[in-house]
């Protein structure tokens, strides 16, 4: 099965406030607060450029992160994307 692509929340739907090593995210649609750690804010920022799958995301994040081994990175990002989906912050396309 091919990796699904994920879409970020629409512009202005999330308010993200860095809090030291963590970030607090307020979802204006659900009025829920989420507290996340790296690399969640970076994933959300990278998805803002448009929907993509985990491999595509790994390529986008490679610019700012030292990702060793593209395959591993994609597998980890798949898990993170599923967690973000569970929080309602991204959705599969």
């Amino acid at each position: 099965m091919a990796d699904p692509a994920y879409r970020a929340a629409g512009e202005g739907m999330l308010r993200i406030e860095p809090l030291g090593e963590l970030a607090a995210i307020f979802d204006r649609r659900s009025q829920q607060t989420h507290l996340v750690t790296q690399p969640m804010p970076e994933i959300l920022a990278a998805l803002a450029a448009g929907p993509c799958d985990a491999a595509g995301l790994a390529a986008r994040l490679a610019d700012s992160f030292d990702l060793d081994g593209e395959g591993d990175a994609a597998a980890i990002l798949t898990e993170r994307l599923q967690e973000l989906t569970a929080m309602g912050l991204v959705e599969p396309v």
Partner: protein
Amino acid sequence: MRHSIRIAVGPVQFRIGSDWAGPVAALGHLYAGYPQDDTRPADATVRLYANRPWRRWLRPSVHIGGDYIVPDALPLPLSMGLLAAEMGMNLQVALGWRRHLLLHASAVARDDRSVILSGASGSGKSTLAALLGESGWRLMGDEFTLIDPASGDALAFPRAVSLKNEAIAEVEARVGPARLGPLLAGTPKGDIRHLIPRADAVAAMHEPVRPALLLFPQFGGAPAIERIGQGEAFVRLTEASTNYIALGEAGFAALTRLVRETPAFTIAYPDSATGMSLVEQLWALAPR
């Protein structure tokens, strides 16, 4: 209601009605020195009532009512009417207040900057604030601290301090009987005696103060201070706030700003003197 009184505590105007004269007279004594503005509409209404008319006379028990009710709250015997009034006032504020972010925290201030002490029952936040209030600090409140979403300032809620158990003797040793209410022995929360805040703290109750320190006290154990990160302080304060969710994004913005601008620490202390000294120690180091 046969008997009633209006009380302003910080920004909250209460109207308290009672089937009995006793609790209202006791409140009148505790709040005699508070500024009165009878033209202001009440923000919160508390009712102390007998569930059946004859109950007013025969084994009277006090039920707590108002804009918000807790259906399974136990009635209290009339001798604890003052405690019922206090619980009713807390309940109306905790459930009904929307103008500020409400933190379940005590607070004291000095030089227009405040120390906010957040903790569960038994953490000692109330006792520490009461004692600091007698030692060169302005007592802002022993139970609730309000954060103004627009300015980020802390606002005082200096209700009569609810001293419990051992804290009663500690405070009795420092203040005259005129500043204390009657001893309520054997309540569901143990022994309780109310302390009337100093007149200068009451007079200053409308003056907002910039938060300078966030402390999470823990009574018991060896003295310890531990710096905590913004994320942990944020989580602890969302749990300590009764209206964080109700405020939506305004609450989110106020709380993220508070934890970002205010250094936060946990403190453990075996006795009040040590607790006060840890607060002074951190205060001396707090950024100005």
